């Protein structure tokens, strides 16, 4: 039984307001016992693998982007059986309402939500503002571990094509809109990695030619919530030049920051076809003979050779 979506003025302006919940909504749902009866499963997903253990929203389970969602050997996500096993162990069934929240303006939470969507999990939502907003509002956190009643989750094969782009897809996509969500220094090629993340570097710096630079954090307000529909439109329509109905690919360095942007484009602005290129710069910037533009200009498409 799906839990009714939240209605408020800010969310109502979004294309798919049912994909977000506020801290207030969540607190009420928890107080009403939604997590206790299994209809709602609350998931925390952070960059730091131990942050959940320092205190989490009561009733939340933890899913780590790296150890739980990525395949251990191949650079890929877990497969259907592994995802089914993970979901079941976290008390998630196919019809559960899953609410995900995390640190850093939901950067990793959006990534986890995107992976859930690869498996077609229907009702998965983000807590607007994430962990920091919940804590800033002085709401309950606990270090008590959450007792999980294992659920049953069917083995569903991943469906990558609708929301995930591979390198060849991006090459074929050239000429259509691309959003680069990295920092301006990474975009221009001044840096080949994010400040403080040199382990995720690349051989070449720059960006995919014609990509617009809209650093992911600009979609988030000071308190970590998503900006209003008007503000997002100013950013992606006016500034980046997207037009309604565009087929868009977003990328960053490993696909996590661009998940945050993917969510904004897909669910808040309602672009039907938005794909996240998770290979991102750690693949493109290391690939042989792919076109690269340097500097702060978008650059031109390469001519055929």
């Amino acid at each position, binding site marked *: 039984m799906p839990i009714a979506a939240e209605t408020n003025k800010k969310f109502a302006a979004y294309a798919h307001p049912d994909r977000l919940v506020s801290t207030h909504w969540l607190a009420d749902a928890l107080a009403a016992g939604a997590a206790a009866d299994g209809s709602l499963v609350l998931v925390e997903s952070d*960059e*730091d693998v131990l942050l959940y253990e*320092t205190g989490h929203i009561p009733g939340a389970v933890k899913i780590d982007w790296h150890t739980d969602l990525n395949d251990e050997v191949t650079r890929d996500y877990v497969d259907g059986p592994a995802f089914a096993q993970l979901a079941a162990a976290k008390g998630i069934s196919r019809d559960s309402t899953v609410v995900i929240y995390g640190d850093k303006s939901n950067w990793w939470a959006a990534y986890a939500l995107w992976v859930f969507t690869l498996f077609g999990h229907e009702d998965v939502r983000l807590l607007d503002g994430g962990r920091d907003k919940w804590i800033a509002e002085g709401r309950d956190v606990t270090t008590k571990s959450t007792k999980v009643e294992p659920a049953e989750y069917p083995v569903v094969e991943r469906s990558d094509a609708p929301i995930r782009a591979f390198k060849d897809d991006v090459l074929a996509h050239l000429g259509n809109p691309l959003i680069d969500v990295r920092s301006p220094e990474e975009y221009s090629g001044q840096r080949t990695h994010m400040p403080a*993340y*040199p382990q995720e570097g690349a051989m070449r710096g720059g960006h995919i030619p014609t990509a617009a630079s809209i650093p992911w954090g600009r979609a988030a307000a000071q308190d970590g919530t998503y900006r209003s529909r008007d503000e997002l439109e100013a950013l992606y329509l006016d500034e980046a030049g997207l037009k309604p109905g565009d087929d868009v690919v977003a990328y960053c360095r490993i696909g996590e920051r661009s998940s945050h942007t993917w969510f904004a484009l897909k669910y808040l602005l309602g672009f039907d076809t938005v794909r996240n290129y998770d290979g991102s710069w750690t693949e493109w910037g290391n690939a042989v003979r792919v076109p690269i533009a340097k500097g702060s200009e978008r650059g031109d498409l390469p001519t055929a050779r």
Partner: protein
Amino acid sequence: MTTTPVLPPALADIVDDFQALDEPERLQLLLEFSRSLPPLPERLTDHPELLEQVVECQTPLFLTVETEKHDDGDVIRLFFKAPPEAPTTRGFAGVLHEGLDGLPATDILAIPDDMPDLLGLTRAITPLRMRGMSAMLGRIKRKVAAAGRASAG
């Protein structure tokens, strides 16, 4: 059984503690180390420029080393600063603090660079995150070596 004869006793004890545990318990132990990392002394909190950032860590980590003069030989003191919302980084700093603080420079320089691997955390926290800890140890050793050269010169 891995033998680690070159590790100083305090660090060897920590490694043994980690190795005696299973994976989830190792994470818990790392969390305890994150809580026991001592705060900076006031003279350093007032002078953040004296600390150096370890950029290889995913979260902001600052550290510095000082040489403390003693009649029976100088020892190295370690100081770390990492935010509470970065418990993994703090945990690594806590391990290095408890294992290395107050040792002579030669002991610290003799620690093998792959010491962090001995904690058995690589699978639980991923190789990516382990690199932060190796970088932290590397930075400490470089700073200790540089301090030694400075005082010798």
